[in-house]
């Protein structure tokens, strides 16, 4: 059974239909990516799965159990964490406090253990743990946002545009970490505008266009697909 299974999902903002009947599956251990242009419905899909937006119709199942209509704070408890677009770290709180918030639904004992693992993935966060998050660089804030999401020990980690606004060298670093996290056992759903990077790390990918899925395949297949190359990889 798929870890996450989304079927015929429809989401609207008032009269505007953002997602028009998309379906996809994510299996345990995979990196799956949703790529597509601005406004294709990628972030809307993640926000809906995370419980921030209520869908109009469709099903979202985590290991066969429906999570549609659950509040976002309940979805986290089920083992789904979203690292949101634009990082959204708590800028006036310290790095350690941000991470503590990430483990809000977990016990202190568990958090202590998870914190060591997060610091192992992101040594820089450990160095800066008492620093206020607003003073971190963009790359460090992205790492903090990812570390914070990991603190809930998610079965599935959803990353929304982790490379946005970062220098190329940092983009590479972030994607290396994504691969490491996956190798360490975290299933990942990745939304990216940087299709090249996303496809090169992903096991499988879905191409979104105006709220529908246009194409699907392995990352390697889509990297060489003519349509995908023309539309998203600059020829």
């Amino acid at each position, binding site marked *: 059974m798929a870890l996450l299974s989304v079927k015929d999902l429809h989401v609207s903002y008032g009269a505007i239909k953002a997602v028009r009947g998309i379906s996809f599956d994510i299996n345990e251990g995979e990196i799956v990516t949703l790529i597509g242009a601005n406004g294709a419905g990628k972030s809307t899909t993640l926000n809906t799965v995370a419980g921030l937006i209520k869908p109009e119709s469709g099903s979202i199942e985590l290991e066969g159990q429906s999570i549609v209509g659950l509040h*976002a704070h309940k979805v986290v408890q089920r083992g789904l964490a979203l690292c949101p677009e634009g990082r*959204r770290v*708590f*800028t006036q*709180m310290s790095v350690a*406090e941000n991470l503590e918030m990430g483990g809000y*639904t977990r016990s202190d004992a568990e958090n202590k253990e998870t914190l060591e693992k997060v610091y192992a993935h992101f040594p820089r966060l450990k160095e800066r743990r008492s620093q206020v998050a607003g003073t971190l660089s963009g790359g460090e804030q992205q790492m903090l946002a990812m570390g914070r999401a990991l603190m809930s020990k998610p079965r599935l980690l959803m990353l929304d545009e982790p490379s946005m606004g970062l220098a190329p060298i940092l983009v590479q670093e972030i994607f290396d970490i994504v691969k490491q996290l996956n190798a360490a056992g975290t299933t990942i759903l990745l939304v990216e505008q940087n299709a090249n990077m996303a496809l090169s790390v992903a096991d499988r990918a879905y191409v979104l266009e105006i709220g529908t899925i246009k194409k699907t395949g392995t990352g390697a297949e889509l990297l060489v697909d003519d349509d995908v190359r023309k539309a998203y990889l600059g020829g």
Partner: protein
Amino acid sequence: MFFTQVLNGLQLGSIYALVALGYTMVYGIILLLNFAHGDIIMVGAYVSWLVMAQLGLHPVLAIILSVAACTLMGVLIDKVAYAPLRNAPRLSILITAIGVSYFLENGAQLVFGADAKVVPAYTDIQTIQLGGLALSFPSVLTVLVTIVATVALTIVVQKTKLGKAMRAVSEDMGAARLMGINVNTTISFTFAVGSALAGIGAVLYAMAYTQANPTMGMMLGTKAFVAAVLGGIGSIPGAVVGGLLVGFAEVIVTALNLSVWKDAVVFLLLIIVLVVRPTGIFGRTMNEKV
């Protein structure tokens, strides 16, 4: 004489500070100027009057019930009036707050009548001796209680899990939800803490001025609002400093035999702050969230 005036300033300022803390906390978390906050003090004063003058029960029970009633009232107001408007434009909820304020004032007038009720003394001790000075016991108690309450509040906000959740929600509600924080519970908790402080303020106020009337919360609340803005709305130390400044301003004006001007001076302070430093003493410039 001088010490008496300083103590008067501290006493009045402390009460403003306690009320301003509730204003500033609620503003910090849901960006609402809760204009019904002052009226919560009126509720607390009436409860003290009911328990002591009507039921003849012990003052300690009156204190406990007053603080409990204020806490409950604060949470209830949020649940009934503000929570349904969480996603509404900010103006709607602001107007609702004004409506709740009128509702409480007129409700109290309906139930208790328009005339002031005399709240009996909570304690027989009127003065305490300190190094040859006879100090007013209610004044000293007010200052001490305010110090303890402020320290306790700071610890709650800085160190406890719920306090940190409050800070997270106040900074980014959506991100806080993604952490697994129950935003509604956190907001209720904020109202509870802010209103409990108002309840303590109510007891201290009734101790000093020994009366309860339906509109007593209006001017008190407005001045506490001035205090919160003066200190920088959203800032906890700001509310305390702002409260003390407003209290001292009033006491100084009164000491100069210009007591008819004391309200005007407080609002003049507000105007000066809004013109010179709109973010207040401890305020940060906040970027509007998009």
